[in-house]
């Protein structure tokens, strides 16, 4: 049966199980939007800026495990998506981005709102397409969803010239894809799995480092079984948080630049690292030449290019984390490492996560109270900066995907639009967007989206009047010269009220819990502006270029020179 290009897009999205798209229309994409009302099965969420569409699709994908879809028009619509697509690329988030392009007859003529979208997005997508004939459209859509969600997931962009949307062709949605150059390896190599099992059986101080790959492959059960069977302690990277319950006796927190001192000691003291679905980012390893000096490394990852990229690996296992761990479970004997665990517990007691005393409103206290009042049942979405690290440190995440945060790209402004996607994907969950005043001001126009879509998102702004993480570095490494980091802001409660969102400003400790309770009483969205101690720093901290063992645990309070 003949269909227009626009109909082909919507029908193919429905065939892929898409229920919601996040987008913003414009000239070239009007004909695609024009046929949207014929497809009531697709919910369109109108964002206020295309970057928000990409972050919302990203948050939706992380929270639900489904492919997030965003769309934008040609030119500025496409370029505004770029930051959000890059963020998804760095964190392996399944996404399909659809952009309109100028009509085929105008391509290459610098037409109005023409930009080389596939050229721009080439290094930030898993794959991208410029579709130049309508009959290919169905195949390209099929391939895009397949590429986005399989193997190491990632964003795929489809650039569609305007005239294709109204062009009519025979429509048959392909049953399967045929990509000669794309065959992800899922099963771990048998001999390597055996070697890994042997190393695990022989190890005295083994440690599992779990990353986002565990969540992507749904390997929670296998990971926990392996840890319990062999009594192996587990640390999780920022994006791995929630892939192993933090309340579990074998959980030892997050290693890395702002990780717990005891987690970093664990990495430093281990004789075997079992790295699952993580990629040895420099924020996790510290100075790479001094990383885990005494440890052999088993690296399990679905992306062969990650193996050996940053650290030398004794046993590489390319495959899907769930299947590889499943195979490993059959090869390991099980055992106990009571001496090693005793050591780790001692380190945790001697070097706990410290929050200094004081009657000021401390940001860590605010985050701890959000966790307490929500009984750990909320999904926490963060922006990027100090508040993000405190949110990672001061809640105990027991559930998969209960912390949604921008890791690899470190994208300020991620929090609010990402929480839009999370709440759309998980309407029954309590969603808290914990943001900084700097990060929030980058994308706060999405308050409009929240109201228009009726999303009951709770927003906590950790307001210190600084671009805090940069200020912290200036304080520590740049002689306390706070250049361009003092940041004014609007009265956030008034801004929220202008959008029709109720809110409260909190400046004292005793106001924290009642404000959080008040936010939870509200069915709809609620904003709390927590005006916190302005110069609080994030600790522990491994200074850039230092080894994990050289962690600074406690702040050295500098006096202000007059």
């Amino acid at each position, binding site marked *: 049966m003949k269909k227009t290009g626009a109909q082909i897009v919507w029908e193919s999205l429905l065939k892929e199980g898409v229920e919601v798209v996040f987008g913003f229309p414009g000239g070239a994409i009007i004909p695609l939007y024009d046929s949207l009302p014929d497809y009531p099965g697709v919910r369109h969420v109108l964002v206020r800026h295309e970057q928000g569409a990409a972050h919302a699709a990203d948050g939706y994908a992380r929270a639900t495990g489904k492919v997030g879809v965003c769309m934008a028009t040609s030119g500025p619509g496409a370029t505004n998506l770029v930051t959000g697509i890059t963020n998804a690329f760095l964190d392996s988030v399944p996404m399909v981005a659809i952009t309109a392009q100028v009509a085929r007859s105008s391509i290459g003529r610098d037409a109005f709102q023409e930009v080389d979208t*596939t*050229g721009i997005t*080439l*290094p930030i997508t*898993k*794959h991208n397409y*410029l579709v130049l004939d309508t009959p290919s459209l169905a195949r390209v859509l099929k391939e895009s969803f397949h*590429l986005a969600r399989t193997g190491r997931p990632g964003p795929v962009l489809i650039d569609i010239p305007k005239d294709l949307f109204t062009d009519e062709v025979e429509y048959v949605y392909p049953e399967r894809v045929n*990509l*000669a*150059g*794309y065959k992800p390896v899922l099963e771990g190599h048998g001999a390597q799995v055996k070697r890994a099992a042997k190393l695990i059986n022989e190890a005295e101080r083994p440690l599992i480092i779990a990353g986002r790959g565990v969540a992507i492959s749904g390997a929670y059960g296998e990971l926990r079984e392996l840890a319990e069977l062999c009594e192996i302690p587990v640390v999780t990277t920022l994006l791995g948080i929630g892939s192993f319950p933090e309340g579990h006796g074998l959980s030892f927190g997050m290693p890395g630049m702002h990780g717990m001192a005891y987690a970093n000691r664990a990495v430093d003291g281990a004789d075997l690292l079992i790295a699952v679905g993580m990629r040895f980012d420099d924020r996790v390893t510290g100075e790479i030449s001094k990383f885990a000096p005494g440890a052999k490394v088993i690296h399990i990852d679905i*992306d*062969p*290019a990650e*193996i*050996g*990229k940053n650290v030398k690996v004794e046993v590489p296992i390319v495959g899907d984390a769930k299947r590889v761990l499943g195979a490993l479970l059959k090869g390991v004997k099980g055992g106990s490492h009571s001496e090693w665990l005793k050591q780790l517990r001692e380190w945790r007691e001697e070097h706990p996560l410290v929050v200094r005393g004081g009657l000021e409103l401390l940001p860590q206290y605010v985050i701890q109270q959000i966790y307490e009042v929500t009984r750990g049942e909320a999904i926490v979405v963060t922006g990027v900066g100090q508040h993000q690290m405190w949110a990672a440190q001061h809640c105990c995440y027991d559930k998969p995907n209960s912390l949604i945060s921008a890791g690899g790209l470190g994208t300020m402004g991620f929090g609010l639009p990402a929480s839009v996607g999370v709440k759309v994907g998980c309407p029954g969950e309590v969603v808290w967007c914990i943001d900084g005043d700097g990060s929030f001001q980058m994308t706060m126009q999405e308050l409009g989206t929240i109201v228009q879509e009726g999303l009951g998102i709770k927003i906590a702004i950790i307001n210190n009047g600084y671009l805090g993480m940069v200020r912290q570095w200036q304080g520590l490494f740049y002689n306390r010269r706070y250049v361009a980091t003092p940041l004014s802001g609007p009265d956030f409660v008034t801004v929220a009220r202008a959008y029709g969102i109720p809110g409260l400003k909190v400046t004292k400790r005793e106001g924290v819990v009642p404000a959080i309770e008040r936010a939870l009483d509200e069915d709809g969205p609620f904003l709390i502006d927590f005006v916190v101690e302005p110069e609080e720093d994030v600790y522990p901290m491994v200074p850039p270029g230092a080894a994990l063992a050289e962690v600074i645990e406690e702040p050295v309070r500098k006096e202000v020179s007059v």
Partner: protein
Amino acid sequence: MTTKHILVALLEDKPGVLNRMASVFRRRGFNIESVNVIDTINMGSSELPNLTRVTIVVSGSKDMVTQLKRQLEKIIDVVKVSEIPAQGEV
């Protein structure tokens, strides 16, 4: 140890695929000594239709070349990458 390596890549004959390869060299900082591109149809090979063969000579350590090979294999339109022995190595 830096030595010469020869990589042979088979690519789907699609628009922009050389750009994708060049982007990997540039982005990951690999120095290419020579690149030779030939359409396999022009080689009279009937069993490999619609493929392009690219021969790359690169200087670097073994680990670096392994990483380059894997990065190239990640490109969806790259079907296969193999290393062939450089002259004097056989």
